[in-house]
């Protein structure tokens, strides 16, 4: 081992090595890329056939949402789309570990978590089509609006969790009552001040929040090596709470780890950082070109870790899935795809005067005058056209 000249200990890159595609020995895994069930001393649990089929269905449908949305963007129906291809297990595992009373603060790529919370995927498309900034009710679904500024929502999640503490819904021992919050963000956001401040606030107040970082290795074109010299989950220790790295392409492990972290939070034991080690198989958004900044070899290696095919292999081998199930889910995905295509194209544009709505809870006279002035101006065109 190389010891650096300054005498403060070993060089960190020497200790941890460059980014590893296998996630290192600390990776919690319950299902190998080859579809073999493995066991973990801390996070293992049994899964029923029904749960496994549910995970499979969720992941296939989530992938279809993503591929349909990408196609819709290519056809000019969406202005942009943030792809999640490859991250289905990380999101379904995290999303299905939630209870109804929990609350999620997503970034803008959590389409699978939204699916788990019952948000209509068409509502997600509306944001990327540009008809609104998000039309679902955060309170109804326990799923906040997408946040575009990287990492800002980690603080909102922490504050919301502090509110739960004050509402007395943490650590009561009542499973119907105790609640927690999940803040989603990516490896790039881990560099932001807001995420680090959220860690400090959450630790200081022992807020019931799970920081769920999907380390998909790339922040647009910046690799994880540009964000961190150490594995991200290890940062938690420096803030005073536990961190764990889970195989983000393994839906079983992601579910088990997130569920444990959520329970810890609900029990009043404070925050946890979960690093879901995964890979963004597509572009950051439909506007970028990943072939300019990364090697196709890497992509090919990660293809072998596909979250859906590994679960399917495991289920088929163990008699938990057959052609009938696979065909039924595919048919459901086709129907969903059709609904998204038609629904997206049928979305009406907002009216021009809608832009003035909801700026304030109590509208100002200034804005009312502006709205009326613009309405009168628009009316002159209608009169001219008569």
């Amino acid at each position, binding site marked *: 081992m190389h010891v650096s000249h300054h005498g403060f200990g070993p060089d960190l890159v020497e200790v941890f090595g460059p980014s590893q595609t296998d996630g290192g020995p600390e990776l919690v895994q319950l299902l190998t890329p080859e579809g073999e069930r493995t066991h973990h001393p801390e996070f293992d649990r049994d899964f029923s056939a029904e749960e496994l089929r549910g995970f499979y269905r969720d992941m296939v449908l989530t992938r279809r949402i993503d591929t349909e949305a990408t196609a819709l963007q290519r056809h000019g129906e969406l202005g942009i789309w943030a792809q999640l291809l490859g991250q289905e297990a990380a999101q379904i595992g995290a999303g299905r570990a939630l209870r109804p009373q929990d609350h999620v603060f997503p970034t803008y790529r959590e389409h699978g978590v939204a699916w788990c919370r019952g948000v209509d995927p068409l509502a997600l498309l509306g944001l990327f089509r540009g008809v609104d*900034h*998000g039309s679902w009710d955060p309170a109804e679904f326990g799923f906040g609006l997408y946040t575009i500024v990287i990492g*800002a929502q980690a603080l*909102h999640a922490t*504050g919301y969790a502090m509110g739960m503490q004050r509402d007395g819904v943490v650590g009561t021992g009542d499973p119907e009552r105790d609640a927690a919050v999940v803040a989603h963000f990516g490896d790039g956001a881990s560099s932001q001040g807001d995420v680090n401040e959220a860690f400090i*606030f959450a630790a200081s107040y022992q807020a019931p929040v799970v920081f769920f970082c999907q380390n998909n290795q790339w922040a647009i074109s910046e690799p994880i090596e540009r964000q961190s010299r150490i594995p991200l989950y290890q940062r938690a220790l420096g803030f005073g709470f536990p961190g764990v790295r889970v195989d983000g392409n393994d839906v079983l492990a992601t579910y088990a780890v997130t569920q444990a972290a959520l329970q810890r939070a609900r029990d009043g034991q404070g925050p946890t950082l979960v690093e879901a080690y995964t890979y963004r198989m597509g572009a950051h958004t439909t506007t970028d070109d990943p072939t300019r900044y990364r090697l196709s070899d890497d992509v090919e290696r990660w293809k072998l870790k596909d979250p859906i095919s590994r679960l399917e292999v495991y289920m088929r081998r163990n008699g938990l899935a057959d052609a009938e199930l696979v065909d039924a889910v595919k048919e459901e995905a086709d129907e969903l795809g059709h609904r998204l295509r038609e629904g997206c194209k049928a979305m009406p544009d907002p009216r021009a005067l809608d832009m003035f709505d*909801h700026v304030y809870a*109590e509208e100002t006279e200034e804005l009312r005058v502006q709205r009326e002035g613009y309405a009168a101006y628009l009316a002159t065109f209608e009169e001219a056209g008569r």
Partner: protein
Amino acid sequence: MSEQITLAKGLNAGLRKAMEGDPKVLVMGEDVGKLGGVFRITDGLQKDFGEDRVIDSPLAESGIVGTAVGLALRGYRPVVEIQFDGFVYPAYDQIVCQVAKMHYRSKGRSPMPMVIRIPFGGGIGAVEHHSESPEAQFAHTPGLKVVACSNPVDGYWMIQQAIACDDPVIFLEPKRQYHADKVLLDESISPDPLFSSRVVRRGEHATLLAYGPTVKTALAAADAAAVEGKSLEVIDLRTLSPLDMGPVLDSVRRTGRAVVAHEAHVNLGLGAELAARITEECFYSLEAPVLRVGGFDTPYPASRIEEEFLPDLDRVLDAVDRSLDY
């Protein structure tokens, strides 16, 4: 209550009253608990309302505002204290991108009933970043409301009104007047609405527009001008976004002249907006262009020369003379 109070006392009593009236009101910020804030505005509140409602925070402004966003989403009404004006910038992103837009983004489903208190302005001999006037940055942001109190009675009522408001309010407090003057608070006299400006001195020859710390300066200028036979009307704007132009326009239509005084840099400041609106609405009544007196377009200077930077009585009177000379 009917007693002589300072601005600091008025704000403290107003906060206390709001907390008593609504258990969802929380106070949050650096040193607001045991210390009672560096200016003692929150003095005694933690002792009476507990650590869950008066929250001493880590030293992170974005964190304070960002967690307050989450608390507001959970149904609380956070009142956050930014310790000094120049320290609000680390929270600027949270304020303009999140606080200001949450109601709009959510089509009204996620209101942000939050008050962000900022001690602002100079004249206390402080080091850099402790004397700034960032109001235009927030008044330029749709979704925020911005108010500035100028006296103890307004401080008492306006803080309660801001907390009751369902929109996020940037609440500016003239720090050099926290402990300066005592004024009689008579609670039997009902307050003006929060988003209203007020004529605080009647006059005929020109209208002085001021807010926060410059109201006192403007009133002193009017006193001095009266000795020379010039009668100046003084308006305390009180609300900066929205602006309450009614009393302003009425006044300028009568006097034909307007001078705006604020501590913030003149370039692209509130004075520019006021000049534009007065010109649009009162063009045929004006006898002179609207003139502005303010901080120069320099960073806030070292405190030994801050009196040169701040608009004082003489600079205001000079502008009045120039206006009257047209």
